[in-house]
């Protein structure tokens, strides 16, 4: 019994609680950056969509399709 307690008390490996806790902490720290990164590439992201309906990268093509104008036409 003492031997078991001794082993448990001095275990250098993570307990199950600690494994779950580390995963939660990673989510808590990194989680808020996910919508920030998505938002920075989003042209239109209406509620309640989980992802933007229009990305900034596809916006020039959409403008070109609609107006026939390219990015160069907007240059001064």
């Amino acid at each position, binding site marked *: 019994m*003492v031997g078991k307690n001794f082993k448990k008390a001095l275990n250098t*490996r993570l307990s199950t609680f*600690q494994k779950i806790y*580390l995963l939660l902490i990673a989510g808590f*720290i990194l*989680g808020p950056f996910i*919508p*920030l990164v998505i938002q920075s590439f989003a042209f239109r992201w209406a509620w309640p969509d989980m992802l933007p309906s229009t990305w900034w990268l596809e916006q020039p093509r959409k403008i070109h399709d609609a107006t026939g104008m390219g990015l160069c036409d907007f240059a001064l």
Partner: protein
Amino acid sequence: MPNSSTKQLAHHRRERLWMWAQLSPVLIILTVLFGGALILAVMQSLGFAPWFGVNTFPDFSYFGALWGSASFWKSLGLTLYYASVSTIIALIMGTLLALALVRHFPSKTLYKYLYKLPLMIPYTVGIALAVIVLGNGGMLSRIMAFVGLIGDPSEFPQILNTHYGWGIIAVYVWKQTPFVTLTLYAVLLGVGRETEEAAAILGANKFQIFFQVTLPQILPGIVSSTLIIFAFNIGAFEAPFILGGGFPDTLPVVAWRYFNDADYTLQLQGMATVVSIAMIASGILYSYLALYRRYERRIGRT
């Protein structure tokens, strides 16, 4: 002819002089910049502001008006509530993380970089993240709509801009948990595992080892880190200003409103608020430190 004790005394005196000479640059800066500003702030809060055409020094009416209003005590309550709740949560989360980080696991190196990330992010970015995640149109409300719990952003429970201060507490905890972890992890590495091993050999279980061996050893780290984060939280302005619930505001926001008022003579009232914050914060922190010192003496540690 001087004897050896006189020589020793002279040597000791020279050493002390050299020590003060080395300390003098930082002492001069602290005395002039911090001490001077503090004296000026106290004098202004007591009615000394000839540049505004006000010189009623010493006049305690600014403190009287401030402390006599019910809203001041509500603001003080909110300030202490946000500061203490976030400090306690950050302490618990940081301690658990530090205890996990001293264990061996495959992605430990990655975690040692990852947990420090919020330390490098400014508070204003942390506030923006809180708005993006916890706001009514934020990521959490989108997820709740995705799983069918809500059908409209207004149905999402208000987390930001309430006097419960969940948003403020979330930002503080997000920013300060890594700070507590960093401090305690360093202490844990310095302490080593020998005393824990001795306790285990003597039959202590893991809870006894934590509360009776590890905790007293990491207590200096706990005290210093909580002291710093509590002092910051009590005087922090941006998070309560952006994420707070409006009137009654926290004391730093109240002070800012006085400073920003078109009637510039109200700046004296603002200065009385700032001096009140300083007095309350230093009173709490001094009591906390005194209690800790008393505990240290009681356990025979000086």
